[in-house]
């Protein structure tokens, strides 16, 4: 059985791993090692060497992201993105609720590497259990001297706070998150400048995903080669993969990067339930393009999924079966994105509701053939570069790919002026 550095300590009974349990399992060794003798640059280098890529969805190399933080001015901030609001995604929740000290150790390591003085964990508003457990774990870590002044007896100080989101999807976008954390409207910011230059309160900041940070302790203790060896592809490490939809055994598993779609769905999730067959997969949260049966053997890593026209995203896939109307499913997703638009830029604010209403019309038997051209146009006009941030382009991923793979279903809705699934 392959190694599971992210989830191996998580208890089957659902209780969180305590500080002593975590330490008994080798926890906080990486932080001790780093703070006990490694320079911040060495920590950063170790992470760079590991090839760790961000697990929030975009897959940007973590060490490289850190390296843009200027050395000079303080304060600097590390912000943990725990605003897990991507539909179909529930991976960070497991880590937050199950092994909070793993995240805390990751926070210490990354904060140390970038020279952060203060770190914030920005949690999805509904993650109340995660909030409680993180706060308890942070209190325990403070009590042991693992947070606060002179961590592990070193000269390094770090304050760590939990901040609960007001509950907007867009707050998962790192710059909108920073605005929300500052108490402002959760609108994304203009980039450049990137948060490394002007982040939280205008200070150099790094925003990292929960799962990303949880990879750090392993990397620091066991090294880059070990980390790379965990993966089946040049992308290092394991990844949490999840499956939702009408499979026999929906869930979440830690697997090597590069595992195939088929392995996840058939071996881990137990294949499709009786009486339904697979029609499509959204591989990495709602804002990724559909894949279909023909992609079952695609290796789940950043490059391979991109080569077939989608994205690895968060690695938590939504499976669509043949008893589910693809128009209705896309409509549901677009409804979400339309409501979650921050309202800043025109294409997203006013384009998504139009798409939503058009899909609604098609879904309820009031579609027109010209609607398909309108939808095609919108997929183009709400694409990257046209909008202020990536929300609308993300929303166009399932729509655009659905129009490609399930066009006949759209046309049938319009021809028959009804939903054939109803």
């Amino acid at each position: 059985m392959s190694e599971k550095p992210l989830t191996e300590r998580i208890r089957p009974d659902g209780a969180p791993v305590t500080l002593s349990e975590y330490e008994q399992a080798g926890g906080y060794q990486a932080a001790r090692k780093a703070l006990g003798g490694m320079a911040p640059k060495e920590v950063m280098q170790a992470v760079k060497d590991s090839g760790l890529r961000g697990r929030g969805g975009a897959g940007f190399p973590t060490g490289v992201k850190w390296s843009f933080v200027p050395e000079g001015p303080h304060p600097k901030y590390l912000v943990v993105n725990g605003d897990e609001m991507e539909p179909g995604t529930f991976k960070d929740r497991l880590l937050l609720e199950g092994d909070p000290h793993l995240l805390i150790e990751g926070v210490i390591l990354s904060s140390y590497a970038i020279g952060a003085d203060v770190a914030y964990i920005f949690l999805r508003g509904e993650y109340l259990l995660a909030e409680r457990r993180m706060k308890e774990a942070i209190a325990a870590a403070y009590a042991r001297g693992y947070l606060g002044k002179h961590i592990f007896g070193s000269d390094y100080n770090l304050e760590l706070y939990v901040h609960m989101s007001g509950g907007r999807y867009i707050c998962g976008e790192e710059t909108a998150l920073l605005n929300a954390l500052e108490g402002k409207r959760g609108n994304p910011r203009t980039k450049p400048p990137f948060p490394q230059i002007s982040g939280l309160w205008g200070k150099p900041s790094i925003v990292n995903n929960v799962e990303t940070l949880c990879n750090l302790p392993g990397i620091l203790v066991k090294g880059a080669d070990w980390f790379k060896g965990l993966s089946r592809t040049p992308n290092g490490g394991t990844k949490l993969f999840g499956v939702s939809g009408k499979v026999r055994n929906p869930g979440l598993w830690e697997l090597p990067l590069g595992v195939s779609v088929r392995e996840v769905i058939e071996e881990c999730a137990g294949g499709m339930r009786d009486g339904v067959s697979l029609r499509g997969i959204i591989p990495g949260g709602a804002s990724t393009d559909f894949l279909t049966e023909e992609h079952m053997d695609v290796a789940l890593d950043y490059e391979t999924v991109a080569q077939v026209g989608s994205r690895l995203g968060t690695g938590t896939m939504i499976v669509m079966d043949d008893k589910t109307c693809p128009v209705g499913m896309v409509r549901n997703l677009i409804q979400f994105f339309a409501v979650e638009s921050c309202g800043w830029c025109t294409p997203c604010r006013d384009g998504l509701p139009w798409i939503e209403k058009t899909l609604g019309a098609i879904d309820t038997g009031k579609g027109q053939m010209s609607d398909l051209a309108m939808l095609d146009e919108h997929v183009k006009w709400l694409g990257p570069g046209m909008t202020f941030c990536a929300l609308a382009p993300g929303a166009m991923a399932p729509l655009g790919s659905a129009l490609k793979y399930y066009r006949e279903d759209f046309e049938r809705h319009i021809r028959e002026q009804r939903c054939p699934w109803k």
Partner: protein
Amino acid sequence: MATIYIDNAPYEVKDGQNLLQACLSLGFNVPYFCWHPALQSVGACRQCAVKQYRDEKDTAGKIVMACMTPATDGTRITIDDAESRAFRAQVIEWLMTNHPHDCPVCDEGGECHLQDMTIMSGHTYREYRFTKRTYNNQNLGPFINHEMNRCIQCYRCVRFYRDYANGGDLAPFASHNHVFFGRHEDGVLESEFSGNLVEVCPTGVFTDKSFKQHFTRPWDLQSAPSVCVHCGLGCNVTPSERYGALRRIRNRYNGEVNGYFLCDRGRYGYEFVNGAGRVRQPLARCKDTGELAPVPKDEALALARAPQGAAIGIGSPRASLESNFALRQLVGADRFFMGVPKRGHQLLSSMISLLRGGPARVPSLREVGEADAVFVLGEDLTNTAPLMALQVYQAQYRAVLPEAEKAGIPAWNDAPVRELLQDKRGFLALATPAETKMDVFAATKCHAAPDEIARLGFAVAHALNAAAPAPEGLAADVAALAAGIAEALRAAKRPLIISGPSCGSEAIVLAAANVASALCAAGLDAALSFVVPECNSIGLALMDAGSLDDAMQAAEGGVDTLIILENDLYRRADRASVDRLLGAAKNVVVLDHTLHATAQKAAVVLPAATFAEGDGSLVNNEGRAQRFIQVMPPQEAIQESWRWCGELLGKPWKNLDVLLAQLGAVLPGFAELAKLAPPADARFGGQRLPRQPHRYSGRTAMQAHLSVHEPQIPNDPDSAFTFSMEGFRGAVPAAVVPSYYAPGWNSVQGLNKFQEEVGGPMRGGDPGVRLIAAAQGARAEFRGAPPAAQATRGAERLIVSLPHVFGSEELSALSGPVAERAPQPYLAVNEADAAAMALSQGDVVELSVGNAQAVLPVEVRASLAPGLVGVPAGIAGIPAVQLPGWGTITKRTEG
């Protein structure tokens, strides 16, 4: 300079611009909404999409937002390719999914930026077939009408209101396609700059409520360039008329003065022109009834004429230079007085001599916004000179901008700049008798009695330069404060000292000048700016006449005729003194547009033109002379005061130019006035300039109920304008641009086409001529002596006057919307003083100050300096005595 390529043609553009600025400055039409030349770029609306190419070989290109893309050397774009055109049309179509098609009933219709941009984008047919979202609107007070259904969410309103003007009570609420711009609850918008929302909003969400009360189609308005008369800053305005009524005021851009914005006093104060109190016919006192009654013009002139050398003339700081000069000619220079009491008179001459004496620069309002540290002594700017407050806010912002530039963020990239700078601001120190709205933005503030403010000023000057006189016995905390202010000012490159006459203290003004001189002596490019109370305070003071007190003295023992020009003396001095003055004259003649208390006492009242019906020149606080041109033909017997004076003199001036020639000859300091605008006989392409837009309707119908013949166009002898829609439409000097129409640009945004570059000076230079030049490079001299520490006088209290942007100024207070915002009379005391005097909120007290009394309710204010008693300036019910002054307060007992 950078070279950019638009459709492969090279263009030189200024460094550090974005593509939208560059394209608009080059004269290209690129549609936009969220960008505003004063508010810069945020990239929200996506309307200014153009296609950018990597290099000459790139033929695919990529759509970028012009406002968010730097116009760096070698940038290649096309504005006109099919894809970006289609995207821009699509953006309009998105905006139209919710915009109601109510243009026919919308106040903005016809001058709507959204209409213009819709046409420009080429979008015509709407495919959207679903419902539109709707909102509830709010009552935002007397100035602004709210119609959120029209909103296209460009975010300009909140960016202006909050980011630019430091307002707090207008915000975006909710999200997705239901973003709402308004207040957290219905209520009056608190900012004194709220009226700018009317022009900042690209469509009809925020419209002018006063205009709505007597609405007319914007293309049916006739307009002329004018200057605001409601404070001393001389903001340029465009008043508009129809059917003989002034309908509204809009901003007129002057890059050196007000730029894009006005204050609400300036925008909404105009209703006095239409007011019930207007004098439209000559009035004379009826022998039988003793009342003023209309008389024929000749009769009135005969009654008003005085024998040679028998009249005393009292001028006015709210009347034009021309009218004051005409009165001076009528009565003789030695019998012409300023109509400003001694203290104000002394302060004005003192300020002028300090400005002229140098060595500090006298900044224009634009330059105020470029100071990198500001020290204000004695002026509550949002109440006495609002646009200067707005510019101080900009100065505070710009002072820290270099930090953003250092971080590689261009100044036009507004949101990241503000995110980086957060609440960092340039240094601002305030010393005022009471808390001001600006206090929260100041690094240092101090509330103290006028003499204490002066002592602080002297102490700062002394801390900067030991040669400057130092106040004696300064408290340690004040000394520390002074040292801190001195240090911050010395660390600046372009420090600015602002002061003025509001505290009635010459010592404050001298102290301010000493600080500026000390900074100049330290090698800094320091500037000194004085606020003045009225629209022509400086102009009148430059005429160098005696004060109102001198006039009273001259009239002592009797005078044949007293001619009072546009001046309600009861607002200037206590009732008894004014009664005595009026009583001393056999004949009192008042020339004014409004029947105020002084006019009611006159034997003859001659109906004077307001700024809307007459031509003239005003000199603002920096000494900039500017011309206002009549917007509408005067009705009935109304004419400019200078015309009345000419007729009384028996030698009327043929027109303004003739008068100006004489003015220049008699007072050479005013010789430049003739250059303020083209002369009346100037013709452009052989034509006059039209006041009416080319779409003006009703020319032949408006008077048809009176006569079916097309009326004769009224004569305008004083300017190159005509009361017509016919005339020259093309490039003219900025002083005579009546509106900002350009083909395809019907809204105020058409201004782009009249500027040398967007946001820059008007083509051919901003209007106005400076009459005051500082002797820059003069040796720093220190003047005056610090007053002694503020003493107490037993039971007496020092009464100070507290200015109110709405209510304190005479003419705007006559305007309904402004009057609605004016305070009721009150007597403010500090909490500790209230306790000491056994007063509490709402108690009624009798105030006795000078030789006047008033009964006022008590307002307990923590924000007033201890020891002081404040009363609102210029409000009816407050005695017009010279303040500060010592007075007594007696609590009225029940019954």
